[in-house]
């Protein structure tokens, strides 16, 4: 009961924020919600299944590129968005088929290499993809279900709808039988195999779902903010969801939102204090790993709020 109320409460607060926040924070929150969807996808792989990937920028950027290129060639926003979801899922499955033959550090390196290869490919075919400079999406085409996504209100509404759908689906997923098998895999792969679970198929399915979320986030990012580029395929975009999840709490449903929100606020606040905001973030993360390695919600759950989802 309490987890349900918490999720409903968070969504209600986000709806209210859409009406109450001033323009700058309004836009910032829309961006946070999209990045939280990306982090939720990462959380499914890392937080729930124990797959520490360093290549999720690939799925995010694949979703974004598929949507952007499709729209650039005349496809409407709706079908282009679906194409983005499919691209994120497909890249996760294809790379997973090979990367899951490895584990631990090798898995991290293989996923990183796939993402790097994808990024370099985007740069190599810069004439088609726009390369590092990217390309803007035509404003007239950024319409979804009749909503003009160049306007702040509809943009926030779509970002929130995507986040709400992602959050509720994630909550249902981790409470489902498949969710239990993902957690079992994270806890001990051999133990799970002994009980009749195929680690490869479970992890591949988890990666595909993770890719779906990442692709959706990438596609939505391009659509909502009107810009697509290979810079979203750099390793920075593989590290960001990891940091969000570590900060908010791996294996918690609301940790990705909390992590993405806090990180955005930290960067914003640090930027006004110093010319090196990333140093502040680095120090914060070191402190966090030393004193709260399970992230904020993970630590709260450990310290007594055991019902936290």
């Amino acid at each position: 009961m309490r987890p349900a109320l918490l999720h409903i409460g968070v969504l209600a607060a986000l709806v209210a924020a859409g009406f109450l926040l001033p323009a700058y924070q309004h836009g910032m929150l829309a961006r946070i919600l999209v990045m939280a969807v990306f982090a939720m996808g990462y959380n499914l792989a890392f937080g729930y299944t124990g797959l520490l990937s360093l290549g999720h920028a690939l799925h995010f950027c694949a979703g974004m590129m598929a949507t952007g290129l499709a729209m650039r060639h005349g496809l409407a926003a709706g079908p282009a968005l679906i194409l983005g979801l499919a691209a994120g899922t497909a890249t996760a499955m294809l790379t997973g088929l090979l990367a899951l033959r490895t584990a631990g550090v090798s898995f991290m390196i293989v996923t990183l290499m796939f993402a790097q290869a994808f990024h370099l490919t985007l740069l190599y075919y810069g004439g088609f993809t726009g390369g590092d400079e990217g390309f803007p999406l035509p404003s007239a085409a950024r319409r979804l279900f009749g909503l003009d996504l160049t306007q702040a209100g509809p943009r926030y509404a779509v970002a929130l709808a995507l986040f709400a759908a992602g959050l509720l689906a994630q909550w249902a997923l981790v409470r489902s039988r498949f969710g239990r098998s993902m957690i079992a895999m994270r806890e001990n792969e051999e133990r799970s195999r002994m009980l009749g679970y195929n680690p490869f198929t479970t992890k591949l399915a988890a990666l595909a779902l993770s890719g779906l979320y990442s692709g959706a986030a990438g596609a939505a990012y391009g659509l909502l903010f009107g810009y697509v580029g290979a810079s979203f395929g750099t390793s920075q975009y593989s590290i960001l969801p990891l940091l969000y999840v570590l900060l908010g709490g791996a294996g918690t449903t609301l940790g990705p939102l909390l992590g993405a929100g806090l990180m955005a606020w930290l960067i914003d606040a640090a930027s006004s204090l110093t010319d090196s905001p990333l140093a502040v973030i680095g120090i914060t993360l070191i402190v966090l790993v030393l004193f709260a390695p399970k992230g904020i919600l993970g630590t709260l759950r450990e310290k007594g709020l055991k019902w936290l989802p």
Partner: protein
Amino acid sequence: MQRIEGLRIEGLTAGYGATTILRDVSLMAEPGRVTCVMGRNGAGKTTLLRSIMGQTARRTGRILLDEIALQDLPAHEVPRHGIGYVPQGRRLFGPLSVAENLEIGLMTRGKGASTREAVLDLFPRLRDRLTQAAGTLSGGEQQMLALARALCLEPSVLLLDEPTEGLQPSMIQLIRDSITRLKAQGVAIILVEQRVEAVLSIADSVAFMAQGQVAEVVPAMGLTPGAEPFRRYIGV
């Protein structure tokens, strides 16, 4: 529970990587009977159970559940044929609740609420702990849960690796009673056990292992704590 004729191990040679542990092991587990496996540390008892579960590298030999050649299956498919395994040290999913650990067992063979209730009837104490994290249970309760999780598969063959190790006497009795009940239900049980008195109280036959081989299989009836095989293979 699915009725079987038995689990037959024929000439099994297996090990880890390049190291061979089991050599030409043959053994039979029959429904409604407890086959105890005894031997000194390093004799290959745990490796035998792990080999049945497909978790070692097999060189030669066969493991047959009726006509099903288990040795040809990937490890994760062995439990789906009704082979339950309770490894040494319990190996639960510590952060998950008791109910979730049972759920993971139930899902393997698509069992539902009736199986869960039957298992909880065997271990009523777990019913009061359903929402508790498995890692926070007492040692005895964890062992109950490990056994209960294996029973959620409705196994026709149950492999138990020292299930009473490190438990207090009341818990040992409870586990033994459970094994006796499972035996009466027709489950074929292979029990690795070090305590002679435990073996004599529930075993139908005892397989003594030494240096990776089954050196001798004797009926439990008629064995006494000081019998010659115990002295020769266990050193008691």
